[in-house]
C-alpha cells in the first residue's frame, strides 16, 4: 500500500525533476566539464586540463573585476543593512504615516535593474551636472566619467533599491519581538540605546543572517544595473564579474574560458555565503 503511494508521488515530482536536471543541473555539470576544454562555441575543443584556470589567475581584467565586485559588495552590504535596519526601527516605532512610508521605501524593488540603471544614469549625468553648474561645482559634473564616481554611483543605486527590501525583512523580525521582554527592559531603566544594543540586536540576529545573505548574493551577482548604469566604463574599470564573464563568453566567444571564470566565481560565492551564514548563526541566540 505505502509502496504504490510513494510511487505515485514520483509522478508529481518527475516532470520538474526532469526539467531542472536538463536546464540547471546538466548545464552546470557540463559547464564544469567545458571549463577544462578549449571549447569556443562552434568546435567542441579538446581537453586542456587546468590551462583555463591558470590563465584566469593571470588575467588582469578578470582579477580587476573580481576586486571591484568585492569592494562594491562590502560597501553596499554594510550601507544597505545600516539604512534598512534604521528605517525598520523608525517605521516600527509608532509613527502615523508608517504604512505609506513602507510602501514608498519598497517601491524600487518592483522596477527592473536595467531600468533603475537608466534612471540613475540620468540623475548622475544630467541632473547632477545641472545642479553642479548652478552651484559652480566641478566635481558634480563628471559623475560616472571616473572610476570612483562609477563605483559610488553603483553603490548609491544598489542601496536605493535594496534598503527598502531589507527593511521589510527587519520589520518582520522586529514585530516578532516579545513585548514582555521590551517592557521588562524599560522597567529596568534601560535607555533606548541600551535596549537596542542588549535586547533588540541579539534577538534580531537571524534577520542579519538572512539580510546579509540576500544583499551579498544580490550585489555579488549584479549584472543588469551594472550594464545600464556604467556599462563597465570608463575603460572597463567599473566592470563587475558577471559582466566580465558575459563579455568573455559572448563577445570574445571564449566559451570554455568564460566557463572557468564562472566556476571560480561560483566557488567564491558559495564559500563566502556559507562562511557568512556560519558566522552569523553562531551569534544567534535562542529565545
Amino acid at each position, binding site marked *: 500500500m505505502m509502496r504504490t503511494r510513494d510511487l505515485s*508521488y514520483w509522478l508529481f515530482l518527475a516532470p520538474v525533476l526532469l526539467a531542472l536536471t536538463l536546464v*540547471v543541473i*546538466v548545464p552546470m555539470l557540463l559547464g564544469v566539464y567545458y571549463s577544462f576544454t578549449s571549447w569556443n562555441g562552434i568546435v567542441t575543443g579538446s581537453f586542456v586540463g587546468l590551462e583555463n584556470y591558470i590563465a584566469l589567475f593571470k588575467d588582469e581584467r578578470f582579477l580587476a573585476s573580481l576586486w571591484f565586485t568585492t569592494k562594491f559588495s562590502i560597501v553596499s552590504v554594510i550601507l544597505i543593512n545600516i539604512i534598512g535596519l534604521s528605517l525598520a526601527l*523608525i517605521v516600527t516605532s509608532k509613527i502615523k504615516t508608517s504604512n505609506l512610508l513602507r510602501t*514608498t521605501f519598497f*517601491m524600487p*524593488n518592483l522596477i527592473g535593474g536595467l531600468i533603475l540603471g*537608466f534612471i540613475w544614469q540620468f540623475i548622475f549625468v544630467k541632473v547632477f551636472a545641472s545642479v553642479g553648474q548652478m552651484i559652480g561645482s566641478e566635481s558634480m559634473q563628471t559623475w560616472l566619467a571616473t572610476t570612483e564616481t562609477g563605483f559610488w554611483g553603483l553603490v548609491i543605486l544598489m542601496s536605493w533599491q535594496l534598503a527598502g527590501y531589507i527593511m521589510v525583512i527587519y520589520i518582520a523580525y522586529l514585530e516578532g519581538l516579545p513585548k514582555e521582554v521590551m517592557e521588562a527592559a524599560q522597567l529596568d531603566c534601560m535607555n533606548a540605546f541600551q535596549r537596542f544594543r542588549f535586547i533588540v540586536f541579539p534577538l534580531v540576529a537571524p534577520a542579519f543572517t538572512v539580510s546579509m545573505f540576500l544583499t551579498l548574493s544580490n550585489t555579488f551577482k549584479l549584472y543588469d544595473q551594472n550594464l545600464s548604469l556604467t556599462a563597465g566604463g570608463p575603460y572597463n574599470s567599473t566592470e563587475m564579474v558577471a559582466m566580465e564573464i558575459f563579455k568573455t563568453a559572448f563577445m570574445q566567444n571564449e*566559451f570554455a574560458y*568564460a566557463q572557468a571564470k564562472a566556476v571560480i566565481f561560483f566557488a567564491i560565492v558559495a564559500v563566502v555565503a556559507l562562511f557568512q551564514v556560519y558566522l552569523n548563526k553562531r551569534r544567534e541566540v535562542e529565545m
Partner: protein
Amino acid sequence: MLRRFPVIVYALLIIIPLIVVVLTSMKTIQQTFQNPLGVPEEGLQFENYVTLFEESNMAGYFMNSVIVTLFSVFFTLLFSAMIAFGITMLNNRLGSVIFAIFLLGMMVPAQVSMVPLYSLVLDLGLTNSLLGLILVNISVTLPIAVFILTGFMKTLPKELIEAAVIDGAGNWKVFARVVVPLSLPSMSAAAIFLSVIHWNDLLYPLLFVTDDTYVTLPLALLQFQGQYSTNYPMLFTGVIIASLPMVIAYVFLQRFFVAGITAGAMKG
C-alpha cells in the same frame, strides 16, 4: 518629529527620482537639456508616448512580456506545487534529498549555467521563440518556488490530509482539493514574486532573442538606449510603459507583494 524627519527625507529620495522620470517622459529633448528637473513653461505633453508606439513595435514587445510572464508564472506555480506536495508527502530521506537538489539549484548563479544553457537552447532550435524563453524561465525559477511552497506545505495540518485519505481521496484529489486550496496564500505570494522576476528579466532574452518579433520589454529598452542614446525623454517613455504594470499591481496588491517578495527570504 525628530524621528519622522530622516524617514521623510528618505521617502523624498525615493520619490523624486521616480517623479523626474515621469516628468522627463513628457518633455522634449530640448526641454530636458535646458532643465532636467523642472516643468517647462510650455507645459507637459504626451507626444513621446504616441511616437514610441508609432515608431517602434512597443505593443508587440509589451504583448511578448505579458505572454512570457503569464505562462512562466503559471507553469512554475503548477510544477512547484506538485513538487512541493511530493516532497511533503514523501516525508523521508528521499524527500530531503530532492529538496536539497532544489536548494542547490537556487545557489547556482546564472553565469555558471549561462554558456551551456545557451548551446542547449540553440541545439533545441528554441532561440528566437517565446516558448524557449518560457521553458528556461520555468526551470530557473522552479527552485525558489519549490523552496517557498515546500516551506508552507510542511506547516499544513496533517490531520486534514489524513482525513481526506480516509474518505477515499486519491493523491490527485488530495492535491487538487485539499493541499492547493489551503496553500493559496503562499501560492499567490509566490506568483507575485515570480511575476516581478520574469517581467524584469533581461539576461535570457539577451541570450536567446535576436529577432525583433520576440523581443520583450527589458531587451527592447536596452536596444532603445543604443538607439536613443541621448534621447532620455523617449527612453523614459519606454521605462514608464515597462514599469507601469508592476507599479499599478503593487498599489492594489501591496500586502501580497511584500509577503511574496520576502517569502523566499523569511524561511531561511
